[in-house]
């Protein structure tokens, strides 16, 4: 339980920062102020300023928007395609369709994800949308496999049998009986994929293939700080901490939720 509280609190801090930044930031992140560049953390600029004199705290707040939005939409894409595919494969278990869906999933897994994400953004041009698609595609097999695995064991249960006897079709059983029972697993996996999405977005932005300037993003801020790291280490430290704390928060929340939903794991203490 402690994990969930700590995890959700950490996540909420950044979600809140992202929300607040929609209406207010301590400084304007589009305003360049070369006279106050590379300032160390102070009472005016809590996290210091970057090489253009922009306030790093404000940039982290706006960057949270980007990170969270990209990761959330990528999870939605993964669930939106993966869950129906998994349910469908389980409903038609053992059939050619099941085989095709699962082998297709294996295939996506075989592609080195970051490499393909870079290829997609390179062919279609670097942008937030392409980063979302690139990350989202790799979420699909994760959810499809998870849903199918969990649904397969449910299809053998007595209450599913009685639903079939009462004349319900496979699609209706999947939606009305299977889906609600795999929801817990999906929520847990969702938080994990969310955190992986944050890391992937940071990596893509770091190599310049994510969100484009002037929109701030955590990965881009780290890339900018690289050449100045000995001169202004704060430029690298704070965006790094933002990524770590958000990912840590989501992972803790995910672990906590899994223990909460599955008390057997709590006993084993995983």
């Amino acid at each position, binding site marked *: 339980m402690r994990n969930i509280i700590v995890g959700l609190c950490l996540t909420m801090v950044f979600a809140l920062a992202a929300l607040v930044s929609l209406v207010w930031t301590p400084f304007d992140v589009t305003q360049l102020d070369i006279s106050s560049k590379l300032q160390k953390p102070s009472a005016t600029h809590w996290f210091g300023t970057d090489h253009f004199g922009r306030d790093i705290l404000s940039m982290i707040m706006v960057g949270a928007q980007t990170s969270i939005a990209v990761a959330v939409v990528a999870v939605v894409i993964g669930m939106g395609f993966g869950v129906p595919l998994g349910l469908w494969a389980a409903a038609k278990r053992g059939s050619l369709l099941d085989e095709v869906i699962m082998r297709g999933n294996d295939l996506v897994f075989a592609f080195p994800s970051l490499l393909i994400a870079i290829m997609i953004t390179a062919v279609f041009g670097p942008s937030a949308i392409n980063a979302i698609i690139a990350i989202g595609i790799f979420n699909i097999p994760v959810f499809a496999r998870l849903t199918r695995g969990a649904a397969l064991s449910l299809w053998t249960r007595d209450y599913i049998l009685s639903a079939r006897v009462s004349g319900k079709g496979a699609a209706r059983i999947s939606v009305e009986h299977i889906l609600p029972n795999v929801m817990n697993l999906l929520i847990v996996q969702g938080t994990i994929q969310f955190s992986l999405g944050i890391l992937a977005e940071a990596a893509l932005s770091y190599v310049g293939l994510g969100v484009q300037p002037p929109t701030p993003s955590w990965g881009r801020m780290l890339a900018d700080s690289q050449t100045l790291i000995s001169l202004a*280490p704060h430029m690298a430290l704070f965006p*790094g901490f933002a990524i770590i704390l958000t990912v840590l928060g989501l992972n803790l929340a995910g672990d906590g939720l899994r223990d909460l939903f599955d008390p057997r794991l709590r006993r084993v203490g995983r």
Partner: protein
Amino acid sequence: MLRYSLKRLGSLLISLIVASLVIFACIEVVPGDPASFMLGINAQPDTIAALRDELGLNASIYERYVSWISGMLTGDLGTSYTYRSPVTEIVAERLVISLPLAIYALTLTVLVAFPVGVLAATRQGSKTDISVMGATQLGVAIPNFWFAMLMVLVFAINLRWFSAGGFPGWDAGFFAALKALTLPAIALALPQASILARVMRSSLLDTLSEDYIRTARAKGLSKRQALWRHALRNALIPVLTIIGLQFSFLLAGAIIIENVFFLPGLGRLVFQAISQRDLIVVESVVMLLVFAVIVVNFLVDLAYAWVDPRLRSHA
């Protein structure tokens, strides 16, 4: 075992064919005309026509695919447009960095994860266990390129123990080359070791709660004997799978770390080729990496079935 191997070999071949189709489509069909994509928007029509000719783009899509695949099968990956040399040669040059780097990082991963995972599992619930779990949570959350930057700041810029980047080549001596790969290998190993330690711990905990361990203990084996003789070997099965996946990830996924340390490896080659729009290099190297991943997974599956005969019958 033979039947299982053949079945897996069949699905390996299908995966490779589909993967090649996807990569071919992504590179040759999606961006429109590859020649004008490679030359950029300011290219003259006659330059484009010349390049189309050189790349054999006037042939049909089907003929291009077949010639690409047959070239790959005979070890001819085409000629790079920007480097003006055979892709096979460029890849071989880069592989002497990427392969040792992946092996180095995986060795560090295993050396750290095994003892740490076993320690945490055997002291479940203790302070050691809690600290290990906390540390691995953190290890998974830290972006490895950020960690790499901090290591450069501390060990290269401040302490001057290592160089901040670049690779002297194996000609400079084994240890000099290994030293240049040390910081990148540590950066790559950090998240992988955290994941592997967690898998090791939970797999060992599962095994330790099995009935046969209880029987072994009831027959008078000490906790340590039961762990070394029975539990560890059985707990290794899921760990091996993860190691297989991690190796292929390390081979293909070092792009970002190679960029941080300016290492001329395979990942950096792909990345540079993408920014230079050298589609021939991108296509061939991505296919090679996917091939490596699929083959490593295939070998892991075989090793798995060899270690655990139950898996063969399930297949």
